[in-house]
């Protein structure tokens, strides 16, 4: 799988409250509606202009704070292709796998990538390629994690493993 997209770049310790505000956790129930308020308290530009296929590049500890899965769902539904960060908070990391949103830990790539540039991620070759021609390798997902992503997230994965077809 290969994806290519424009980069939105953020700093360290971006928490789930600014990705998807707590006040919406019980008032916005529709997945597509969640996408409309993504990053509202962090970057209104993103909320207005992010396009399907765009890529988020961030510092350490992206997604710290609450366990709210909507902080992943809102980006997935917005069509974000992947998140590259120096690190992820653990619940957020699991939520990404469970929602089938690809995430990559690569501090070197984060330092080299600029906001607004277009980068390519080649998951088969485990490579990030920047507009300037730089290439960063990242470790492939462990086998069972790859299964989750390939099945489109945890729920389809569980259905498959339980032999439930629809």
């Amino acid at each position: 799988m290969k994806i290519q997209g424009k980069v939105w770049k953020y700093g360290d310790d971006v928490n789930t409250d600014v990705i998807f505000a707590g006040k919406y956790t019980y008032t916005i129930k529709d997945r597509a509606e969640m996408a409309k308020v993504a990053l509202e308290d962090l970057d209104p530009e993103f909320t207005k202009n992010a396009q399907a296929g765009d890529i988020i590049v961030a510092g350490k500890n992206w997604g710290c704070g609450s366990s709210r899965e909507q902080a992943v769902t809102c980006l997935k539904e917005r069509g974000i292709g992947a998140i590259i960060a120096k690190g992820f908070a653990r619940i957020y990391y699991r939520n990404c796998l469970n929602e089938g949103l690809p995430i990559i830990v690569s501090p070197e790539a984060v330092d080299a990538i600029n906001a607004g540039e277009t980068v390519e991620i080649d998951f088969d070759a485990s490579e990030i390629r920047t507009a300037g021609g730089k290439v960063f390798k990242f470790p492939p997902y462990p086998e069972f994690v790859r299964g989750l992503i390939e099945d489109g997230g945890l729920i389809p994965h569980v259905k498959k493993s339980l032999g439930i077809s629809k």
Partner: protein
Amino acid sequence: MGMTFAEKVLGKAAGYAVKAGDVVTVEPHFCMSHDNAAPIAKTFKKIGVPKVWKPDHLVFILDHAIPAPTDEHAVNHKEIREFVEEQGIPHFFDVTSKGGVCHQKMCEEGFALPGLIIIGSDSHTCTYGAYGAFSTGIGRSEMAAAWATGKIWFRVPESLKITVKGKFNKGVSAKDLILKIIGDIKADGADYMSVEFHGPAISEMSLAERMTLCNMGIEMGAKNAVCPPDEKVLEAIRGIEKTNEWEAIWADEDAVYAKELTYDLGELVPCVAKPHTVDNYASIDEVKGTKIHQAFLGSCTNARIEDLRLAAEILKGKEVAVRTIVIPASWRVYRQALDEGLLETFLDAGCVITNPGCGPCMGNHEGILAPGEACISTANRNFKGRMGNKDSFIYLASPMTVAASALKGEIADPREVL
């Protein structure tokens, strides 16, 4: 080579010896959900399994927005009641005088027990480490999958050992310790790790204080946080255990840690976490005099009877200068505060007391801030927009510091009023 708490508990559940870095699949003893049980139930139904794996292993506790402040919340609660009925879930705490904040109830009601594995669809599930449990927060999809399969995977975490010695000086409490630790090691300082609290000062601490420490483990990125299952724990759980599967498990003396830290309580001073991150530590001297518009004494971090007593001692016979919201952690705490005369003290001081629940902590109701306003709060998060408005400011502090600040209308040093 010795084993850490996490290695022992996860190894026992997996049925074979494990070490940090291994991935295990285990059966959780309890699965806790609050108001988000409704969306989880919807996801569960998508899986296509008719019944949850073990109804008595699920615990539902309404707390995030109770009684329902909007029709959306009301529908949410209704869906939970219907699911409870349909699935025959015995452990359900509805909007009654038996309820309270989910993490408080889990401990009060004997679900939080030594050596158990407890997952919760709330990041502060790590609180039950105060009772020696391995407990951690997960997302909604993962909880739905756990209801269906009775299984969850964990990477066995590395461990961070924090040894605490010494005694608190006047006006300093467990909240000041945990804010200091997070300020030192930062919001990602314990990412993915199991945090173990050791040392004579932890033994001295009440379970309420230990809950404050473990509750905020997530604010430094921890998977779980835990204190030794000592006599105080065994005494507290006697007769209320919801299962006999528990076992007092603790790390070996020669366990191997990724990192070790030591704190001396005698060196701590009252402090706050400034907006907008929990690791933005400031000693009270640095922020004294900062204007506030609201004070909040509540949340799963600091609203137990011990916390209310500390605040009441400061507020007794005086009057608050700003609106002050007091929310006991559970109705049991509320009743005890009533019996001890603490509620009267709060009322006389001009505080507003609301029903137990999460209140304004994550911006649902009962104390939302306006743009430009600042709140001093005993809760655990001060993220931008957390209390409902992105242009407001939250300072996290101990019950004593919050009470002292409420009296002055500005951030104040509790040592000056004790």
